[in-house]
Protein backbone atom coordinates (compact mmCIF):
# COMPACT_ATOMS: atom_id res chain seq x y z
CA UNK A 1 0.00 0.00 0.00
CA UNK A 2 2.63 2.49 1.12
CA UNK A 3 4.77 1.37 -1.73
CA UNK A 4 1.98 2.06 -4.19
CA UNK A 5 1.37 5.53 -2.82
CA UNK A 6 5.06 6.30 -3.06
CA UNK A 7 5.24 4.92 -6.57
CA UNK A 8 2.31 6.95 -7.87
CA UNK A 9 3.45 10.12 -6.15
CA UNK A 10 6.91 9.75 -7.61
CA UNK A 11 5.54 8.93 -11.05
CA UNK A 12 3.28 11.93 -10.93
CA UNK A 13 6.16 14.23 -10.15
CA UNK A 14 8.34 12.62 -12.77
CA UNK A 15 5.70 13.32 -15.39
CA UNK A 16 5.10 16.86 -14.20
CA UNK A 17 8.81 17.66 -14.27
CA UNK A 18 9.19 16.00 -17.63
CA UNK A 19 6.50 18.25 -19.04
CA UNK A 20 8.08 21.27 -17.39
CA UNK A 21 11.46 20.40 -18.93
CA UNK A 22 10.07 20.85 -22.42
CA UNK A 23 7.68 23.70 -21.74
CA UNK A 24 9.80 26.06 -19.64
CA UNK A 25 11.13 29.02 -21.60
CA UNK A 26 14.27 29.55 -19.53
CA UNK A 27 16.80 26.92 -20.50
CA UNK A 28 18.49 26.90 -17.11
CA UNK A 29 15.18 26.24 -15.39
CA UNK A 30 14.53 23.53 -17.90
CA UNK A 31 17.82 21.85 -17.04
CA UNK A 32 16.98 22.14 -13.36
CA UNK A 33 13.70 20.34 -13.89
CA UNK A 34 15.64 17.67 -15.68
CA UNK A 35 17.81 17.24 -12.60
CA UNK A 36 14.74 16.95 -10.41
CA UNK A 37 13.35 14.42 -12.82
CA UNK A 38 16.49 12.35 -12.56
CA UNK A 39 16.42 12.53 -8.79
CA UNK A 40 12.85 11.27 -8.68
CA UNK A 41 13.68 8.49 -11.09
CA UNK A 42 16.50 7.57 -8.73
CA UNK A 43 13.99 7.47 -5.90
CA UNK A 44 11.89 5.16 -8.04
CA UNK A 45 14.86 2.85 -8.44
CA UNK A 46 15.41 2.88 -4.70
CA UNK A 47 11.76 2.02 -4.26
CA UNK A 48 12.17 -0.91 -6.61
CA UNK A 49 14.96 -2.24 -4.41
CA UNK A 50 17.81 -1.18 -6.63
CA UNK A 51 19.83 1.23 -4.48
CA UNK A 52 22.93 0.71 -6.57
CA UNK A 53 21.14 1.84 -9.68
CA UNK A 54 19.64 4.75 -7.76
CA UNK A 55 23.03 5.93 -6.54
CA UNK A 56 24.52 5.57 -10.01
CA UNK A 57 21.61 7.45 -11.51
CA UNK A 58 22.23 10.37 -9.18
CA UNK A 59 25.99 10.24 -9.53
CA UNK A 60 26.18 9.93 -13.30
CA UNK A 61 23.11 11.73 -14.55
CA UNK A 62 22.24 14.31 -11.93
CA UNK A 63 25.76 14.89 -10.66
CA UNK A 64 27.75 14.56 -13.83
CA UNK A 65 26.03 14.85 -17.16
CA UNK A 66 23.54 17.55 -16.32
CA UNK A 67 26.26 19.68 -14.79
CA UNK A 68 27.85 19.68 -18.20
CA UNK A 69 24.50 20.56 -19.77
CA UNK A 70 24.29 23.44 -17.37
CA UNK A 71 27.77 24.54 -18.40
CA UNK A 72 26.81 24.62 -22.01
CA UNK A 73 23.56 26.41 -21.33
CA UNK A 74 25.27 29.03 -19.18
CA UNK A 75 28.17 29.59 -21.52
CA UNK A 76 26.33 29.63 -24.81
CA UNK A 77 23.79 32.27 -25.51
CA UNK A 78 20.69 30.34 -26.54
CA UNK A 79 18.45 33.35 -26.87
CA UNK A 80 19.34 33.65 -30.52
CA UNK A 81 16.27 34.16 -32.73
CA UNK A 82 15.87 31.67 -35.58
CA UNK A 83 17.44 32.61 -38.88
CA UNK A 84 15.17 34.21 -41.42
CA UNK A 85 15.34 31.37 -43.92
CA UNK A 86 14.54 28.79 -41.29
CA UNK A 87 11.00 27.56 -40.96
CA UNK A 88 10.16 28.41 -37.31
CA UNK A 89 7.79 25.46 -37.02
CA UNK A 90 10.07 22.89 -38.51
CA UNK A 91 11.52 21.87 -35.16
CA UNK A 92 8.12 21.72 -33.53
CA UNK A 93 6.84 19.41 -36.21
CA UNK A 94 9.95 17.29 -35.88
CA UNK A 95 9.36 17.14 -32.13
CA UNK A 96 5.79 15.97 -32.59
CA UNK A 97 6.88 13.26 -34.99
CA UNK A 98 9.53 12.09 -32.57
CA UNK A 99 7.11 11.97 -29.62
CA UNK A 100 4.63 9.93 -31.65
CA UNK A 101 7.38 7.49 -32.57
CA UNK A 102 8.45 7.11 -28.94
CA UNK A 103 4.85 6.64 -27.82
CA UNK A 104 4.27 3.93 -30.40
CA UNK A 105 7.46 2.25 -29.30
CA UNK A 106 6.39 2.37 -25.67
CA UNK A 107 3.02 0.88 -26.60
CA UNK A 108 4.70 -1.95 -28.42
CA UNK A 109 6.97 -2.65 -25.47
CA UNK A 110 4.03 -2.60 -23.07
CA UNK A 111 2.03 -4.95 -25.27
CA UNK A 112 5.00 -7.24 -25.66
CA UNK A 113 5.73 -7.39 -21.93
CA UNK A 114 2.11 -8.34 -21.33
CA UNK A 115 2.52 -11.13 -23.81
CA UNK A 116 5.48 -12.59 -21.89
CA UNK A 117 4.33 -15.26 -19.43
CA UNK A 118 4.50 -14.18 -15.80
CA UNK A 119 7.06 -16.74 -14.57
CA UNK A 120 9.77 -15.16 -16.72
CA UNK A 121 9.24 -11.78 -15.09
CA UNK A 122 9.20 -13.36 -11.67
CA UNK A 123 12.47 -15.04 -12.46
CA UNK A 124 13.96 -11.74 -13.53
CA UNK A 125 12.88 -10.19 -10.31
CA UNK A 126 14.44 -12.87 -8.17
CA UNK A 127 17.87 -11.97 -9.53
CA UNK A 128 17.68 -8.73 -7.60
CA UNK A 129 17.63 -9.45 -3.90
CA UNK A 130 16.38 -6.66 -1.70
CA UNK A 131 19.45 -6.67 0.51
CA UNK A 132 21.97 -5.64 -2.11
CA UNK A 133 22.48 -5.89 -5.80
CA UNK A 134 25.84 -4.37 -6.56
CA UNK A 135 27.41 -7.75 -6.93
CA UNK A 136 24.56 -9.03 -9.10
CA UNK A 137 24.76 -6.02 -11.38
CA UNK A 138 28.47 -6.57 -11.83
CA UNK A 139 27.99 -10.28 -12.31
CA UNK A 140 25.33 -9.82 -14.96
CA UNK A 141 27.29 -7.11 -16.73
CA UNK A 142 30.33 -9.30 -17.11
CA UNK A 143 28.54 -12.53 -17.99
CA UNK A 144 25.18 -12.33 -19.75
CA UNK A 145 25.54 -8.80 -20.99
CA UNK A 146 29.25 -8.73 -21.67
CA UNK A 147 28.91 -8.00 -25.38
CA UNK A 148 26.37 -5.17 -25.03
CA UNK A 149 28.51 -3.76 -22.25
CA UNK A 150 31.64 -3.81 -24.36
CA UNK A 151 29.80 -2.37 -27.34
CA UNK A 152 28.51 0.43 -25.15
CA UNK A 153 31.99 1.19 -23.91
CA UNK A 154 33.31 1.19 -27.47
CA UNK A 155 30.55 3.58 -28.43
CA UNK A 156 31.50 5.89 -25.60
CA UNK A 157 35.13 5.76 -26.61
CA UNK A 158 34.24 6.64 -30.18
CA UNK A 159 32.03 9.48 -28.95
CA UNK A 160 34.85 10.77 -26.79
CA UNK A 161 37.35 10.73 -29.64
CA UNK A 162 34.81 12.37 -31.89
CA UNK A 163 34.20 15.10 -29.36
CA UNK A 164 37.90 15.76 -29.01
CA UNK A 165 38.35 15.90 -32.77
CA UNK A 166 35.44 18.28 -33.12
CA UNK A 167 36.60 20.54 -30.32
CA UNK A 168 40.25 20.70 -31.32
CA UNK A 169 40.42 20.77 -35.07
CA UNK A 170 44.06 21.78 -35.24
CA UNK A 171 45.27 18.85 -33.15
Amino acid at each position, binding site marked *: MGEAIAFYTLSFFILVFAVLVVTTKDTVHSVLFLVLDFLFVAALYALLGA*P*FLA*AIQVLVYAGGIVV*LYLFVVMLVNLKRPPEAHEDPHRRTRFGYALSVAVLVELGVVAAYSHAIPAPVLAGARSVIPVSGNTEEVGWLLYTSYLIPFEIASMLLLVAMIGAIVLAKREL
Partner: protein
Amino acid sequence: MDLFVIPLLKILIVLNATLVGVTYMVLLERKVIAWAQSRLGPMRVGPYGILQPIADAVKLMLKEDITPARADRWVFTAAPIIAMVPALIVYAVIPFGDKATLFGREITLYITDINVGLLYIVSVASVGVYGIILAGYASNSKYPLLASLRASAQLISYEVAVTLTLVSVILVAGSLSMVQIVRAQESAGWWFVFVQPLAFAIFFIGGLAETNRAPFDMPEAEQELTGGFHTEYSGMRFALFFLAEYANMIVVSSVATTLFLGGWLRPFPGVSALSFLDIIPGWTWFLVKSFVFLYIFIWVRATLPRYRYDQLMRIGWKVLIPLAIVNLVVTGIIKVMLL
Protein backbone atom coordinates in the same frame (compact mmCIF):
# COMPACT_ATOMS: atom_id res chain seq x y z
CA MET B 1 7.98 1.71 17.56
CA ASP B 2 11.62 0.88 17.21
CA LEU B 3 11.24 1.12 13.49
CA PHE B 4 10.41 4.80 13.58
CA VAL B 5 11.20 6.38 16.91
CA ILE B 6 14.81 5.35 17.32
CA PRO B 7 15.87 6.33 13.78
CA LEU B 8 13.99 9.58 14.15
CA LEU B 9 15.71 10.28 17.44
CA LYS B 10 19.02 9.44 15.88
CA ILE B 11 18.36 11.72 12.94
CA LEU B 12 17.40 14.50 15.31
CA ILE B 13 20.53 14.05 17.38
CA VAL B 14 22.86 13.78 14.40
CA LEU B 15 21.28 16.75 12.67
CA ASN B 16 21.57 18.95 15.72
CA ALA B 17 25.02 17.74 16.57
CA THR B 18 26.07 18.46 13.02
CA LEU B 19 24.69 21.95 12.98
CA VAL B 20 26.21 22.79 16.33
CA GLY B 21 29.42 21.11 15.27
CA VAL B 22 29.48 23.15 12.12
CA THR B 23 29.01 26.43 13.91
CA TYR B 24 31.70 25.52 16.38
CA MET B 25 33.86 24.43 13.50
CA VAL B 26 33.79 28.06 12.41
CA LEU B 27 34.93 29.12 15.84
CA LEU B 28 37.61 26.46 15.87
CA GLU B 29 38.88 27.63 12.53
CA ARG B 30 39.00 31.22 13.67
CA LYS B 31 40.77 30.26 16.85
CA VAL B 32 43.29 27.93 15.27
CA ILE B 33 44.14 30.38 12.53
CA ALA B 34 44.42 33.12 15.11
CA TRP B 35 46.90 31.08 17.08
CA ALA B 36 48.84 30.32 13.95
CA GLN B 37 49.00 34.02 13.27
CA SER B 38 49.89 35.05 16.82
CA ARG B 39 46.51 36.55 17.47
CA LEU B 40 43.81 35.67 19.96
CA GLY B 41 40.80 35.24 17.72
CA PRO B 42 37.31 35.96 19.02
CA MET B 43 37.47 36.81 22.71
CA ARG B 44 34.50 39.01 23.40
CA VAL B 45 31.41 36.83 23.41
CA GLY B 46 31.60 34.55 26.39
CA PRO B 47 34.81 33.31 27.99
CA TYR B 48 37.43 32.88 25.27
CA GLY B 49 34.75 33.69 22.75
CA ILE B 50 33.02 30.35 23.01
CA LEU B 51 29.62 31.94 22.47
CA GLN B 52 30.78 33.61 19.28
CA PRO B 53 29.01 31.13 16.97
CA ILE B 54 25.71 31.92 18.64
CA ALA B 55 26.29 35.64 18.25
CA ASP B 56 27.20 35.07 14.62
CA ALA B 57 24.11 33.01 14.01
CA VAL B 58 21.89 35.66 15.57
CA LYS B 59 23.61 38.35 13.53
CA LEU B 60 23.22 36.46 10.28
CA MET B 61 19.59 35.70 10.94
CA LEU B 62 18.77 39.30 11.68
CA LYS B 63 20.60 40.64 8.67
CA GLU B 64 18.72 41.88 5.68
CA ASP B 65 18.19 39.24 3.09
CA ILE B 66 19.01 40.86 -0.20
CA THR B 67 18.02 39.52 -3.58
CA PRO B 68 19.68 41.42 -6.40
CA ALA B 69 17.24 43.17 -8.66
CA ARG B 70 18.02 41.24 -11.79
CA ALA B 71 18.63 37.90 -10.15
CA ASP B 72 16.73 34.77 -11.02
CA ARG B 73 14.61 34.80 -7.89
CA TRP B 74 13.64 31.17 -7.53
CA VAL B 75 16.99 29.76 -8.39
CA PHE B 76 18.66 32.37 -6.21
CA THR B 77 16.60 31.20 -3.25
CA ALA B 78 16.98 27.51 -4.04
CA ALA B 79 20.76 27.56 -4.47
CA PRO B 80 21.78 27.78 -0.78
CA ILE B 81 19.26 25.11 0.09
CA ILE B 82 20.59 22.85 -2.64
CA ALA B 83 24.08 23.43 -1.27
CA MET B 84 23.10 22.71 2.33
CA VAL B 85 20.81 19.70 2.05
CA PRO B 86 23.23 17.21 0.47
CA ALA B 87 25.85 18.19 3.01
CA LEU B 88 23.46 17.20 5.78
CA ILE B 89 21.83 14.05 4.43
CA VAL B 90 25.21 12.45 3.87
CA TYR B 91 25.44 11.95 7.63
CA ALA B 92 22.77 9.26 7.34
CA VAL B 93 25.33 6.61 6.49
CA ILE B 94 28.34 7.74 8.48
CA PRO B 95 29.08 5.27 11.28
CA PHE B 96 30.08 7.28 14.32
CA GLY B 97 30.53 4.15 16.35
CA ASP B 98 29.62 0.52 16.44
CA LYS B 99 27.00 -0.28 19.06
CA ALA B 100 26.13 1.19 22.38
CA THR B 101 23.79 0.08 25.10
CA LEU B 102 21.45 2.74 26.30
CA PHE B 103 18.60 2.17 28.71
CA GLY B 104 18.95 -1.54 28.23
CA ARG B 105 18.62 -1.23 24.48
CA GLU B 106 21.31 -1.93 22.01
CA ILE B 107 21.59 0.95 19.65
CA THR B 108 23.75 1.21 16.57
CA LEU B 109 25.65 4.46 16.42
CA TYR B 110 24.73 5.22 12.87
CA ILE B 111 21.43 6.19 11.34
CA THR B 112 21.44 3.50 8.75
CA ASP B 113 23.81 1.13 7.05
CA ILE B 114 22.94 0.71 3.42
CA ASN B 115 25.04 -1.58 1.34
CA VAL B 116 25.87 1.15 -1.17
CA GLY B 117 26.76 3.61 1.55
CA LEU B 118 29.90 4.91 -0.07
CA LEU B 119 28.23 5.29 -3.42
CA TYR B 120 25.41 7.11 -1.70
CA ILE B 121 27.84 9.60 -0.20
CA VAL B 122 29.55 10.21 -3.51
CA SER B 123 26.33 10.65 -5.41
CA VAL B 124 24.72 12.94 -2.87
CA ALA B 125 27.88 15.01 -2.66
CA SER B 126 27.84 15.34 -6.43
CA VAL B 127 24.46 17.03 -6.21
CA GLY B 128 25.91 19.64 -3.85
CA VAL B 129 27.73 21.25 -6.74
CA TYR B 130 24.42 22.51 -8.08
CA GLY B 131 24.15 24.87 -5.16
CA ILE B 132 27.34 26.58 -6.25
CA ILE B 133 26.64 26.59 -9.97
CA LEU B 134 23.15 27.91 -9.52
CA ALA B 135 24.23 30.53 -7.02
CA GLY B 136 26.67 31.81 -9.57
CA TYR B 137 24.17 31.74 -12.37
CA ALA B 138 21.21 33.16 -10.48
CA SER B 139 23.12 36.11 -9.05
CA ASN B 140 23.33 37.54 -12.54
CA SER B 141 26.71 38.97 -11.75
CA LYS B 142 30.07 38.32 -13.32
CA TYR B 143 32.19 37.41 -10.34
CA PRO B 144 29.81 34.74 -9.06
CA LEU B 145 29.46 33.40 -12.58
CA LEU B 146 33.21 33.03 -12.98
CA ALA B 147 33.43 31.49 -9.54
CA SER B 148 30.67 29.03 -10.20
CA LEU B 149 32.29 27.95 -13.43
CA ARG B 150 35.53 27.45 -11.59
CA ALA B 151 33.76 25.58 -8.82
CA SER B 152 31.92 23.20 -11.04
CA ALA B 153 34.97 22.44 -13.16
CA GLN B 154 36.95 21.87 -9.99
CA LEU B 155 34.38 19.66 -8.34
CA ILE B 156 33.84 17.51 -11.39
CA SER B 157 37.56 17.04 -11.99
CA TYR B 158 38.40 16.16 -8.44
CA GLU B 159 35.41 13.94 -8.04
CA VAL B 160 36.91 11.65 -10.64
CA ALA B 161 40.14 11.29 -8.70
CA VAL B 162 38.42 10.91 -5.35
CA THR B 163 35.96 8.35 -6.63
CA LEU B 164 38.78 6.33 -8.17
CA THR B 165 40.58 6.20 -4.82
CA LEU B 166 37.36 5.12 -3.18
CA VAL B 167 37.12 2.28 -5.66
CA SER B 168 40.52 1.02 -4.63
CA VAL B 169 39.42 1.12 -0.99
CA ILE B 170 36.30 -0.77 -1.94
CA LEU B 171 38.47 -3.35 -3.64
CA VAL B 172 40.43 -3.86 -0.46
CA ALA B 173 37.40 -3.86 1.82
CA GLY B 174 35.15 -5.84 -0.49
CA SER B 175 32.10 -3.79 0.35
CA LEU B 176 30.44 -0.46 -0.29
CA SER B 177 28.90 -0.31 3.14
CA MET B 178 30.59 2.10 5.51
CA VAL B 179 30.15 -0.24 8.46
CA GLN B 180 31.49 -3.19 6.51
CA ILE B 181 34.54 -1.16 5.50
CA VAL B 182 35.34 -0.49 9.14
CA ARG B 183 34.79 -4.13 9.97
CA ALA B 184 37.13 -5.10 7.17
CA GLN B 185 39.79 -2.95 8.78
CA GLU B 186 39.08 -4.58 12.11
CA SER B 187 39.55 -8.05 10.68
CA ALA B 188 42.59 -6.99 8.70
CA GLY B 189 44.10 -5.55 11.85
CA TRP B 190 45.29 -2.55 9.90
CA TRP B 191 43.85 0.81 9.15
CA PHE B 192 43.58 1.15 5.41
CA VAL B 193 45.82 4.18 5.47
CA PHE B 194 48.71 1.71 5.74
CA VAL B 195 47.32 -0.45 2.97
CA GLN B 196 46.40 2.39 0.64
CA PRO B 197 48.69 5.31 1.50
CA LEU B 198 48.56 6.73 -2.01
CA ALA B 199 44.79 6.55 -2.07
CA PHE B 200 44.73 8.31 1.27
CA ALA B 201 46.94 11.13 -0.01
CA ILE B 202 44.87 11.56 -3.15
CA PHE B 203 41.68 11.48 -1.12
CA PHE B 204 42.98 14.13 1.21
CA ILE B 205 44.04 16.47 -1.61
CA GLY B 206 40.84 15.79 -3.49
CA GLY B 207 38.90 16.41 -0.30
CA LEU B 208 40.53 19.80 0.09
CA ALA B 209 39.59 20.60 -3.48
CA GLU B 210 36.07 19.29 -3.24
CA THR B 211 35.28 21.28 -0.16
CA ASN B 212 36.79 24.39 -1.78
CA ARG B 213 39.36 24.72 0.94
CA ALA B 214 42.76 26.37 0.75
CA PRO B 215 44.95 25.96 -1.21
CA PHE B 216 42.18 25.09 -3.66
CA ASP B 217 39.67 27.72 -2.58
CA MET B 218 39.46 29.36 -5.98
CA PRO B 219 35.67 29.48 -6.16
CA GLU B 220 35.58 31.74 -3.16
CA ALA B 221 38.93 33.42 -3.62
CA GLU B 222 38.00 36.73 -2.18
CA GLN B 223 41.15 38.40 -3.41
CA GLU B 224 40.31 37.56 -6.98
CA LEU B 225 36.58 37.11 -7.17
CA THR B 226 35.45 39.21 -4.21
CA GLY B 227 33.97 36.24 -2.41
CA GLY B 228 33.17 34.03 -5.33
CA PHE B 229 29.81 32.44 -5.86
CA HIS B 230 28.27 33.90 -2.74
CA THR B 231 29.22 37.48 -3.51
CA GLU B 232 25.62 38.55 -3.91
CA TYR B 233 24.29 36.62 -0.93
CA SER B 234 23.63 38.06 2.46
CA GLY B 235 22.13 37.09 5.78
CA MET B 236 20.98 33.55 6.36
CA ARG B 237 21.32 32.51 2.74
CA PHE B 238 24.98 33.36 2.88
CA ALA B 239 25.18 31.52 6.18
CA LEU B 240 23.79 28.41 4.53
CA PHE B 241 26.64 28.39 2.02
CA PHE B 242 29.05 28.94 4.80
CA LEU B 243 27.62 26.14 6.89
CA ALA B 244 27.46 23.83 3.89
CA GLU B 245 31.17 24.30 3.36
CA TYR B 246 31.96 23.38 6.93
CA ALA B 247 29.46 20.53 6.93
CA ASN B 248 31.21 19.21 3.84
CA MET B 249 34.53 19.49 5.61
CA ILE B 250 33.17 17.37 8.42
CA VAL B 251 31.80 14.89 5.90
CA VAL B 252 35.16 14.57 4.19
CA SER B 253 36.88 14.11 7.55
CA SER B 254 34.36 11.52 8.61
CA VAL B 255 34.65 9.63 5.36
CA ALA B 256 38.43 9.75 5.54
CA THR B 257 38.28 8.52 9.12
CA THR B 258 35.97 5.70 8.20
CA LEU B 259 37.78 4.59 5.08
CA PHE B 260 41.37 5.08 6.03
CA LEU B 261 41.69 5.56 9.77
CA GLY B 262 39.54 2.70 10.92
CA GLY B 263 36.44 4.63 11.91
CA TRP B 264 35.62 3.88 15.52
CA LEU B 265 38.52 1.44 15.91
CA ARG B 266 41.37 2.14 18.27
CA PRO B 267 44.86 2.51 16.84
CA PHE B 268 46.35 -0.75 15.66
CA PRO B 269 43.26 -2.89 16.17
CA GLY B 270 45.31 -5.98 15.42
CA VAL B 271 47.84 -5.47 18.22
CA SER B 272 46.39 -7.03 21.32
CA ALA B 273 49.00 -5.38 23.55
CA LEU B 274 47.11 -2.14 23.05
CA SER B 275 43.77 -3.60 24.04
CA PHE B 276 43.66 -1.45 27.19
CA LEU B 277 42.73 1.36 24.81
CA ASP B 278 39.38 -0.32 24.31
CA ILE B 279 38.16 1.35 27.50
CA ILE B 280 37.71 4.47 25.43
CA PRO B 281 34.42 4.17 23.57
CA GLY B 282 34.57 3.86 19.81
CA TRP B 283 32.76 7.08 19.03
CA THR B 284 35.45 8.98 20.90
CA TRP B 285 38.06 7.52 18.61
CA PHE B 286 35.95 8.50 15.67
CA LEU B 287 35.54 12.05 16.86
CA VAL B 288 39.22 12.41 17.74
CA LYS B 289 40.30 11.19 14.33
CA SER B 290 37.85 13.45 12.55
CA PHE B 291 39.02 16.33 14.64
CA VAL B 292 42.64 15.73 13.68
CA PHE B 293 41.56 15.81 10.08
CA LEU B 294 39.64 19.03 10.52
CA TYR B 295 42.61 20.52 12.30
CA ILE B 296 44.82 19.68 9.35
CA PHE B 297 42.31 21.35 7.03
CA ILE B 298 42.59 24.53 9.04
CA TRP B 299 46.32 24.25 9.42
CA VAL B 300 46.76 23.97 5.67
CA ARG B 301 44.64 27.04 5.18
CA ALA B 302 46.79 29.04 7.56
CA THR B 303 49.99 27.96 5.88
CA LEU B 304 49.67 27.74 2.14
CA PRO B 305 49.04 30.26 -0.61
CA ARG B 306 46.39 29.57 -3.18
CA TYR B 307 46.83 27.68 -6.39
CA ARG B 308 45.77 29.23 -9.62
CA TYR B 309 42.79 27.81 -11.43
CA ASP B 310 44.71 26.28 -14.34
CA GLN B 311 47.31 24.84 -11.98
CA LEU B 312 44.56 23.25 -9.95
CA MET B 313 43.06 21.64 -13.02
CA ARG B 314 46.49 20.49 -14.12
CA ILE B 315 47.13 18.83 -10.77
CA GLY B 316 43.73 17.20 -10.89
CA TRP B 317 43.92 15.80 -14.37
CA LYS B 318 47.60 15.25 -14.89
CA VAL B 319 48.70 14.12 -11.45
CA LEU B 320 45.90 12.91 -9.23
CA ILE B 321 43.76 11.06 -11.75
CA PRO B 322 46.65 9.10 -13.34
CA LEU B 323 47.97 8.29 -9.88
CA ALA B 324 44.54 7.17 -8.78
CA ILE B 325 44.18 4.97 -11.85
CA VAL B 326 47.61 3.43 -11.29
CA ASN B 327 46.75 2.86 -7.66
CA LEU B 328 43.48 1.23 -8.65
CA VAL B 329 45.11 -1.06 -11.20
CA VAL B 330 47.87 -2.08 -8.80
CA THR B 331 45.35 -2.73 -6.06
CA GLY B 332 43.24 -4.81 -8.44
CA ILE B 333 46.19 -6.88 -9.57
CA ILE B 334 47.34 -7.54 -6.02
CA LYS B 335 43.83 -8.40 -4.99
CA VAL B 336 43.45 -10.90 -7.83
CA MET B 337 46.89 -12.42 -7.16
CA LEU B 338 46.18 -12.84 -3.46
CA LEU B 339 42.82 -14.45 -4.08
